[in-house]
């Protein structure tokens, strides 16, 4: 049984995706990328990741809409843990994301070490 965990990184900025990929791959994860919620949904249905890291502000389908769609799916797709990393620091933004089904909320910028630490915990990988 494969022990490598897959993470889907969803963000419209290629630099942000690269930043996350760099940290996560070095930590032993397999990383897939999507640049908005729509592409993310496609990817999730093709190969379900163990964890999703998603931005909020994205074109075509934003993070909140993506999470709502994700959570409406049948299990196990619907229960994939999702961490939001967003520029928005407001209470309302946090509440909206959580209501949509975000299992944790980070405000950008996020340090690579923090990203890796939480990714491991949510994916069940020992430190």
């Amino acid at each position, binding site marked *: 049984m*494969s*022990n*490598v965990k897959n993470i889907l990184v969803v963000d419209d900025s290629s630099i942000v995706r690269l930043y996350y990929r760099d940290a996560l791959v*070095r*930590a*032993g994860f397999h990383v897939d990328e999507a640049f908005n919620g729509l592409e993310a949904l496609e990817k999730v249905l093709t190969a379900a990741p163990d964890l999703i890291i998603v931005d909020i502000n994205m074109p075509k389908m934003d993070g909140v809409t993506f999470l*709502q769609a*994700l*959570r*409406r*799916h*049948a*299990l*196990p797709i*619907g*229960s*994939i*843990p*999702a961490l939001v990393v967003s520029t928005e620091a407001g209470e309302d933004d946090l509440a909206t994301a*959580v*209501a*949509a*089904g*975000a*299992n*944790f*909320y980070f405000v950008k910028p996020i340090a690579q070490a923090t990203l890796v*630490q*939480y990714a*491991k*915990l*949510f*994916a*069940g*990988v*020992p*430190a």
Partner: protein
Amino acid sequence: MNDFLEQFVSESRDLVSSALSDLEALRQAPSDLALFESVFRGFHTLKGGAGIVEFDEMGRLMHFAEDMLANTREAGNSVSPALVLRLIDCLDLVSSWLDKIESSDALPAAAADEVRRLTADLSIVSANQVAPASASIQDSDVPGWLLDAFGSAYRNYGATLAVRYEPTPDCFFRDQDPLEKVRELPGLCSLRILPKLSWPTLEEFEPFTCNLVICCLSTSRPTAVVDHLAEVAEQIEIHVLTSSESAGVPISHEVSSAILKAQLAVLSGSVEEGLVGRIGSAARSAANLLRVLGTDRGALEIEEIADRAIHSRQPDLLSHKLRAVMAELAARPVVHAQSGGPAQPVTTSLRVDIRRVDRLVRLTGQLTVSKNAIGHIAGLLGNSSDVRQIGEELKSQHAALSSLVEQLQHSVLALRVVPLSHVFQRFPRVLREIAAKLGKTASLTTEGGDTEADKTIVEGLFEPLVHVLRNAIDHGVETPEERAKQRKPALASVLLRGYREGTNVVIEVTDDGRGIDTGALKRTALMRGLLAPEILDAMSDQDAMEIMFLPGLSTAGSVTAVSGRGVGMDVVRGTLERMSGSVTVHSSMGVGTTIRFTLPFSVMMARVMTVEVDDQVFGLPFDAIVEMIQVPRQSIRPVGSAEALVFRGRTVPIVNLSRALGRASPDVPSEVAKIVVVRVAGQLGGFEVDRFGGRLDLMLNPPSGLLADVPGVAGTTLLGDGRVLIVVALEELLE
């Protein structure tokens, strides 16, 4: 670990330690027969011990070493440097096994391989004693193939072991598929495939010859991996990753409770859409967290409850469980996510001199007598009206009791006292490892290993000493070429020295390296904005050395892998201060550096001689006192702005204790001066006091509040009459 194993480990460590020092001596005097015999006996006894506890690999290794030595003796040769080095390797390996045994009661799985490798080395070496081995000992614990395959990233996977699988070139013809074997490897988490020999061109390439070396990381147990690969056992090499190599970062309580709280928030949503997904994701997140924290059962419980919550569409069922989990975690001490064993063995047992225990037994007998006497007196109170007489008897019994309690205190603390050699003996190996990693050569000499100090202090010294040693080798010791240019011997020397001074234990690490470049320190401090330029300009060289204790400093061009992990001298100072100790630096450019640790001899006790000045009682460290004398006032002569006395042909500076501690001096000096002569840091000094007291053993409280800033105060204690006794820090006063 049972008592028997404990004793085995303890005795083996002693044997290894003396064998190592014998081997070092043998290196200087290869024909010394007595040393040879001693080394031989050492290996022989180690072999015997290993046999009794059935650690076969260790027994085999010791036996082999014994054979090598025996052959050498028969051939009439003296022991070659190469053989000495290999024997040292064997003993280092045994030391590392003893560490493993302490934490897991068994030899590491790779022990057999390690033995094979060493015995192969040993036989080559003893066969041709002509060519000495080069001084570079591959002492690194991490095998080359692991680093080649993964780089330092091997640490990132949380793996417990690494496997190197080299299939035979004809395995394809034998209907074997090495990848198939690896695919099902228990706990596989990462894989690298490397060519055994460099790849030829595509035209020349033979597709049915296997030229692959497969390296894997696994989170499983060595036995599981070995079982799985049993068919190809000879093609496998396993390296167990120690906990320090795949070290876990402890998960703080804040992080785990933040994560659980976030899941509670997810569960509190009232929207029907996506409810099942939200419950499921909260459960998965929480369960994964618990698995990492080591509570698999808790994770399973969460999953079961989540199933019910989903089925009945009631998120509260899961919320309730998560709250319970949070409460449980709050009550728990923080647990390391992956603790394969302590990175350094912490002994929880003591080897105790049986005479000290006997003394304790006798004391309890005497205490019982005293207790009975006091009970008797209490009874008298009822019958007799002679209160004064009873008062006298009570006082007398109390004095007896006090004396007994004092002795008890002493004796119990004496149990905790161990010689510095306990920590010193680990250092030659540590030094070798560090030097090898940094490409330098250095030798370690230790002095004063029989100096005693409290066990916790001695053990607490290990980490800071390792840091200091790393810095000394990394920054202090020059490369062999640089040393040659300065006409220093290629082999750098490091001296680790311990001695008692007053109520303190002093440990010094001295190297003969390049010394501390205060100019560089100042420049770095300036660059990092740690200190203002005016302050830096005004600093003396000695002051500038204190810069190295500022946090966030590194004067090396690049932070090396060995010493660059946040191991600043600020950390060392902090550690020492937590043990009520201090760190100082003395250095000379081009000559070397000494780092000095000063620690209380015992965490609790100070033995002082009390003296009085006016109404204030002071305690002077008993061991520092040379003599207490009374001299005519005239014999104290002014010398410059100070005063001095001629004592036994030496000029001794005299300080009025009262003045030294900032109090007013008496208007009329007495005709006869009472002087306590002390020796501090090798120098004699004298303190003038009003009255001599007596010897007192006391529990020392570190100075706090107003007294903390007064120089010369080592601590205080409360006397029976309610007065505060100030214990004097002589070194500070006499500077």
